């Protein structure tokens, strides 16, 4: 063994604590998100605008048993906000980080892929906490009164974060930035229309309903609807779909993610 290899083998590199690196990277990811005007628009302005507009202007169909739009829209828009920040925002930001060479540069540092992905998920979760506070406040101001098992709603949001961040990183980790931008926006629109966030899944044609119920957006919004309404019962099939997406998407992202 050469002297330099010997020093490393003896622990000479003395790596910094992984938690400290992860925390520093998470803080950088949060600052980076807050600097991007498109992220603020996508993560907050659009969900708040949709919630307020469709709650006050009664043009959307409502599922049976729901009389006020805000009661249907509030959980749906929370799901929409999670999808915006965890999938679209992460995909676009990461795609351009690849284009700017940021990912390549980070690949040669001690940060490493697991800590980078964990930092992105933690930063997204932090942004989501802020989104939930603001959106819930607006919904309550519009007359929404959640009364279901809110702990389950929090778990559902966490699963949704994992699923959508996984999808975002799956795109950004393997496609070019421009393709990622187009793919993320296209998928956002499809998942929004079929996700039961604004339009009830029960009002869709039968075939589309089956498709919608198998999507992460459909599963998340359905689970959230039943978790904020004490009168509704849990559909464990929807939970199973959501958990599957929350496991499969991040694993696929981690396996296919490339630094350049």
């Amino acid at each position, binding site marked *: 063994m050469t002297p*330099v290899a010997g020093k490393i083998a003896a622990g000479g590199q003395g790596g910094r604590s992984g938690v400290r*690196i992860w925390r520093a*990277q998470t803080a950088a990811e949060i600052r980076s998100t807050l600097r991007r005007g498109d992220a603020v628009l996508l993560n907050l302005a659009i969900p708040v605008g949709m919630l307020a507009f469709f709650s006050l202007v009664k043009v959307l169909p409502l599922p049976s048993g729901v009389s006020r739009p805000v009661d249907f829209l509030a959980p749906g828009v929370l799901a929409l906000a999670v999808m915006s920040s965890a999938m679209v925002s992460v995909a676009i930001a990461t795609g351009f980080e690849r284009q700017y060479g*940021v990912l*390549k540069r980070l690949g040669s540092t001690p940060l490493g892929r697991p800590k980078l992905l964990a930092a992105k998920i933690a930063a997204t979760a932090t942004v989501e906490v802020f989104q939930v506070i603001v959106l819930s406040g607006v919904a309550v101001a519009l007359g929404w009164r959640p009364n279901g098992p809110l702990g389950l709603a929090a778990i559902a949001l966490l699963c949704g974060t994992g699923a959508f961040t996984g999808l975002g990183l799956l795109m950004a980790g393997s496609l070019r930035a421009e393709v990622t931008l187009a793919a993320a926006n296209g998928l956002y629109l499809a998942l929004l229309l079929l996700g039961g966030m604004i339009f009830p899944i029960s009002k869709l044609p039968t075939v589309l309903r089956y498709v919608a119920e198998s999507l992460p957006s459909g599963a998340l919004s359905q689970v959230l609807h039943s978790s904020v309404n004490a009168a509704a019962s849990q559909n464990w099939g929807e939970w199973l779909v959501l958990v599957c997406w929350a496991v499969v998407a991040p694993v696929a992202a981690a396996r296919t993610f490339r630094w350049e």
Partner: protein
Amino acid sequence: MDSDEATIEVCDLTVRYGRKVAVDSLDLRVASGEIVALLGRNGAGKTSTVETLEGYRSPSAGRVRVLGLDPSDRRSHRALAQRMGVMLQKGGVYPGMGAAEALKLFASYYARPVDPQSLLDDLDLGGVARTAWRRMSGGEQQRLSLGLALIGRPEVAFLDEPTAGVDPHGRLVIREKVSTLRNSGAAVVVTTHELDEAEKLADRILIMDRGRIVASGSPRDLLASAPTAGRVRFDAREGLDTSSLAEQLSAAVYESTPGSYTVQLEGDGAAADTRHAVAAVTSWLAELDLPLASLRVGATLEDVFLDLTERPTGVDEL
């Protein structure tokens, strides 16, 4: 060089992309405290070589060791990352991030980082401490990029075009930092197209062509061994008829670019001929009542590079 002292050891490295051979059975050793410049045309195999050393690519064949470890092995790469500094040719920084924030973030990755504030001052980046990367000048971006490569006190550094697009003052700053890094005992590999910079920076120059090293040595050795050492160049008014000078010297005289002339001496006794050619050029211009703008005797690194990397007629590029 003793084998135990080599920081970088490459034996018989081959990198292929499908049927294309980018690096062809390359051997390379770089010692600690040495700056090696890797020169070559686009597609010569420089980037593939360096990216293999950095761990971004796996060799198709051959053996690569950096600090005694295999960079393509994930676990070894994690250990190497603590001791390696990489400067990319372009980008590599969050576009909205200022110099101070970027240095502080990268410092957080390493066990014994340089103080970000002192590096900011050393690189003359105090004025853009809070300026977003995308708003910095090319020179400021290069200096910050170098700073990010140095922040972890690397024992081995790979610098890709470190002075490209940098003004003369910035070049001085960069050269000084790279020399300091070498003096601290680090092995430094610089890839560049800027031959003057390579000559000023490097202890040793390697010229690559079609995936192979075709010349290696100190800048002085390479210049001395150049077949074009018997060459005199001068700048004067463009469009001069040089036939009388060529006849007087019995040598080829041609205008290589507008206003730049080359006297190519042939045969033995190049030193005596060169002195004679210098006298002939100056008196010829005096007779024409023309000022001599500049005069240079001998080969340049560019001559060496062009001579060694010229492609024979009829040979296809890889």
